[in-house]
């Protein structure tokens, strides 16, 4: 059990660092989503099922959905995103 916990924690740190360095916003949100999932697993290990349920529903679910909607609103989810950005800069 301890080994599993340590692995999960390692994953948490990896997720957190890669969120910081990812260039694409969509990627970082996806990574953040997995961060939440790992966190909820960790909480199962720590014998807190209430937290695990809540985190899974909220952190991985609702928060991520809100992030996605936001990205859509600010036109960051788009196939032609890089060019668009460049265009904007050129303007």
């Amino acid at each position: 059990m301890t080994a599993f916990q340590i692995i999960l924690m390692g994953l948490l740190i990896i997720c957190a660092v890669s969120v910081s360095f990812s260039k694409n916003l969509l990627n970082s949100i996806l990574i953040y989503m997995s961060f939440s999932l790992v966190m909820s697993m960790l909480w199962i290990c720590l014998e807190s099922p209430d937290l695990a349920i809540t985190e899974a529903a909220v952190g991985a679910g609702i928060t991520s959905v809100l992030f996605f909607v936001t990205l859509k609103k600010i036109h960051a989810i788009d196939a032609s995103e890089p060019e668009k950005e460049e265009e904007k800069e050129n303007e």
Partner: protein
Amino acid sequence: MSRKKTAEEYQKTFAFRFFRWLSGEKDPYIGKVEMQPQKEYQPDQEAALRHEKEHDAIMDKVYDTEHNKWLYRFHRLYQATSILFCLFLIALLLVTISYLPPNGTVTRPVNNEVAERYIEKGLEETGAVNIVAGMILDYRAFDTLGESHVLFVATITVLILLRLNKTEKDEAEVSDRRFEPKNDAILQLVATFLVPVIIIFGIYIILNGHLGPGGGFSGGAVIGAGLVLYLNAFGFKKTERFFTEKTYKWVCFFSLSFYCLAKSYSFYTGANKLHSVIPKGTPGAILSSGLILPLNIAVGLVVACTIYAFYAMFRKGGF
């Protein structure tokens, strides 16, 4: 007095300035304190434009990081200090943690009479099998009352920020659907199956909050997620039939008022050492544990509505 220096040169000397100061002629505020002559301000159109242009040019120069070395350096310095600060914070926290009582053991100060009583008497005093639910909704109910109002106030701020009036809303809706396929068959089919399951699961979590893991908040979130899925599959037209802003308003109002009043009653009786008339029921039954079940339902309703409201607000600034 010898005239070796011209008047102009003389004005630059220290002696001149000193004597000016000595005789009180020098005004230390000229050019330093904002004190222009009191003429009526007459904006000259041309001058104003020119001024604006110059200002823009200056601003461009100042905020042009590539060419403005100072700004660049400042940014670098800021980043470096921030990183150093964070490293320092990590070190500090690690050192602190190394002094904390060891994890996972029984002898820590955390495991004191408070936790003991919650575990030993919790079932008896609150009637909840899930001690965590009993704790947050009975022992420490004031925190939870505050917590639900945090959610409420956050919704209010989101409403302030994103609610649009009628015409803006229509425009927003048009632009909102632009990138999406309408009436996606696969999504609709999956949703037809999934949404009831999700919502029933959410209801289960809420109703079972005092018996097992879960509770109002997580259950509400699950129901909210179900509603969001439904909305995504079938569009606003369908959801508006049963969920409008009015629904949201009144559901929230009634749930929160119930929450407030119920808890007020409980606080009031508790503090004044009066007998509370709310029955505890048999532990383990679905209708047990006093106020916890109705409170869970109220919280669940608020959360489900709130999450749907968040989503709808984000999408098109209204319901």
